[in-house]
């Protein structure tokens, strides 16, 4: 009894208590209907207004960011295409210099060969003299009948002998002439072959030039699209940046694995140099930090090496250095990298020695005798492997500059696009939340009217019975419909 809430008129019967209270409150709720509606509407507007405003501001900010991202992306893309085109022109220049430099000589050679072929062809055209005219006379003689005349017979035999002799001579001359022509024609072959080879070579050189020209055309087309700020160019560049970002992240993750292996190789021997008992934090030894510093210095040297080699362009000041200074810097970075690689190889050897020493100590401390380790060249393979790894990994780490550059450039685009999406999503959520709140207050107004439905019905009946058509207060059913409409 004493534990019952104070509002309960009949502590044993909650429902009845609540009903009585409701009936008591009903006239007050009916009387306060208009202010309650206004209050709920105000609350709805109060919540919805700022949210809608914030959503609008966020959308505007997203549009601004998108435009800025587009400008940056296109500028970057334009720069990239310009570099591509410049590189293509350099290639074309190199091709022209290398291949077409000897073009006059090649042309002269071709002309010489053509002239010679023409001369030879002309020589082939010099046919042997035709058969003498007496052949026709001879044909006339053959029609002469001897009729057994010995004189005629002898003359004819003499003519036959002379003609046979002359025929044989003429035949030899013809054969010689054709042999000479065949020889000339045979001599054509090397010239034809040479001509063919020279023409093929010239064609090949010209076709590689043609390929480069096609590449330049493609780049120029891309460049025009970028300059025109087309959506196609933006889409292409965004996709390209996303691919670059993913690939660069992947390569950097692999490089991080390499750096971790490198760290494991040199962390233990570094304790021999800087001591194993000092700590920078509760769990981080100074020797481990020293090992990390060495790895970072190696990566930095690699970065500068790539920068001075103009492979990467992370520091414009480095690529703009005078040629002599740039080369000096390049050699300095390379020598430092080489030195660090040498140090790492030595540290890897030391690590092996330290582990062997520790193992020997533990074996001597153990009560039972351990099996003797395998001796000979097999035992040296891990040592040699560690040393080799220690030497190679710094150079491998040097190449991290390339994916790093890709990562940095593509991260701007990818990050910018992700930010735009995030801002838009936030704006959408705010808009939805605002709408939900506004609709909730409308629903509450309807619920309010439903709760005081009985007095409203009575009011409606009273008004209907009076027959008042133009009433200031709208009927209950109309009110219920009204509150659902747009304000």
């Amino acid at each position, binding site marked *: 009894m004493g534990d019952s809430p104070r509002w309960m008129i009949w502590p044993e019967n909650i429902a009845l208590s609540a009903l009585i209270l409701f009936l008591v409150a009903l006239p007050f709720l009916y009387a306060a209907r208009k202010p309650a509606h206004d209050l709920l509407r105000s609350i709805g507007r109060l919540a919805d207004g700022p949210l809608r405003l914030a959503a609008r501001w966020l959308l505007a900010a997203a549009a601004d960011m998108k435009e800025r991202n587009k400008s940056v992306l296109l500028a970057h893309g334009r720069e990239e295409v310009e570099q591509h085109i410049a590189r293509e022109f350099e290639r074309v220049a190199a091709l022209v210099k290398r291949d077409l430099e000897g073009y006059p000589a090649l042309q002269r050679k071709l002309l010489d060969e053509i002239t010679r072929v023409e001369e030879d062809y002309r020589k082939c055209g010099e046919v042997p003299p035709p058969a003498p005219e007496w052949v026709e006379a001879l044909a006339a003689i053959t029609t002469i009948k001897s009729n057994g005349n010995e004189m005629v017979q002898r003359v004819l035999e003499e003519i036959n002998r002379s003609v046979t002799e002359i025929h044989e001579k003429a035949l030899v001359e013809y054969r010689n002439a054709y042999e000479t022509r065949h020889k000339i024609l045979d001599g054509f072959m090397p010239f034809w072959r040479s001509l063919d080879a020279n023409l093929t070579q010239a064609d090949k050189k010209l076709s590689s030039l043609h390929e480069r020209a096609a590449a330049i055309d493609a780049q120029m087309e891309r460049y025009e699209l970028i300059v025109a700020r087309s959506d196609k160019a933006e889409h292409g560049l965004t996709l390209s940046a996303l691919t670059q970002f993913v690939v660069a992240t992947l390569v950097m993750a692999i490089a991080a694995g390499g750096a971790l292996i490198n760290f494991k190789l040199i962390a*233990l021997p570094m*304790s*021999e140099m*800087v*001591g*194993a*008992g*000092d*700590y*920078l*934090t*509760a769990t*981080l030894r100074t020797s481990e930090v020293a090992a990390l510093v060495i790895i970072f210095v190696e990566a930095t040297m690699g970065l500068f090496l790539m920068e001075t080699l103009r492979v990467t362009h992370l520091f414009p000041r480095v690529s703009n250095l005078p040629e002599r200074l740039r080369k000096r810097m390049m050699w300095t970075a390379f020598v430092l990298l080489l030195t660090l690689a040498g140090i790492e190889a030595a540290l890897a050897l030391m690590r092996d020695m*330290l582990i062997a*020493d*520790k193992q020997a*100590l*533990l074996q*001597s*401390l*153990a*009560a039972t005798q351990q099996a003797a380790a395998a001796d000979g060249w097999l035992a040296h393979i891990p040592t040699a492997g560690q040393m080799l790894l220690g030497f190679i990994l710094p150079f491998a780490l040097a190449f991290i500059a390339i994916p790093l550059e890709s990562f940095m450039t593509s991260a701007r685009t990818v990050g910018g696009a992700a930010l735009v999406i995030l801002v838009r999503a936030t704006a959408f959520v705010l808009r939805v939340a605002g709408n939900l709140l506004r609709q909730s207050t409308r629903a509450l107004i309807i619920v309010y009217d439903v709760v005081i439905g009985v007095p409203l019905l009575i009011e409606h009946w009273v008004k209907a019975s009076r027959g008042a058509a133009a009433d200031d207060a709208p009927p209950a059913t109309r009110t219920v419909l009204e509150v659902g409409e747009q304000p």
Partner: protein
Amino acid sequence: MMRRNLVAAAAALAALVLAGCTDQRSHAQAVYLLVDTSGTYAEEVDKAQLIVNYLLGTLQSGDSLAVARVRSRSFSEKDIIAKATFDGRPTQANAQKRVFRDQIAEFTKTARGSAYTDITGGLIQGAMFLNETGAGKKTILIFSDMQEELDKTTIRNFPIDLKEIRVVAVNVVKLKADNIDPRRYTGRLEAWQKRVEDAGASEWHVINDIEHLDALLKS
């Protein structure tokens, strides 16, 4: 002049930042092993060598280790058989450990039993040694049956100071009388626990299986 002042200020700031970055707390561990050589327990001294070898294999560069015997009166530096703070360089630390191992091996060969057992004196000596090392973790291992026996002139019934020191009783063998009445054994250990905790020790443990020592020392 102004520029020089600026450079000096920057250098001082850098030094302060570096000093601030460095963790000034000691991460070293110091272990003081008391080896009971009195009466019949002297026969167990070979096991103590195993513990020392285990400690030598576990402790790192910068850690400290001392082994002392418990005799009729143990509050003396002369009872410390071997002590070392291992060098920061692993090779040097390994060399120190080898020397330490040899010293203990020599001790186990020549150890003689004593008439009385002054564990309290050993504890006081151990606490002094550990506090001098300035180590972050301080442990006293008592390799004994924990049966203290003092002669009439030795005074040890006063409060001792074992603040921030972990005390571990190792290989607490049961005496003949304990076998007759096990309550004597538990009562003895409880009395030691009370005394050690009253002295401000951070922890009290009893370990009869040496393999359990590993987990304790690593915690």
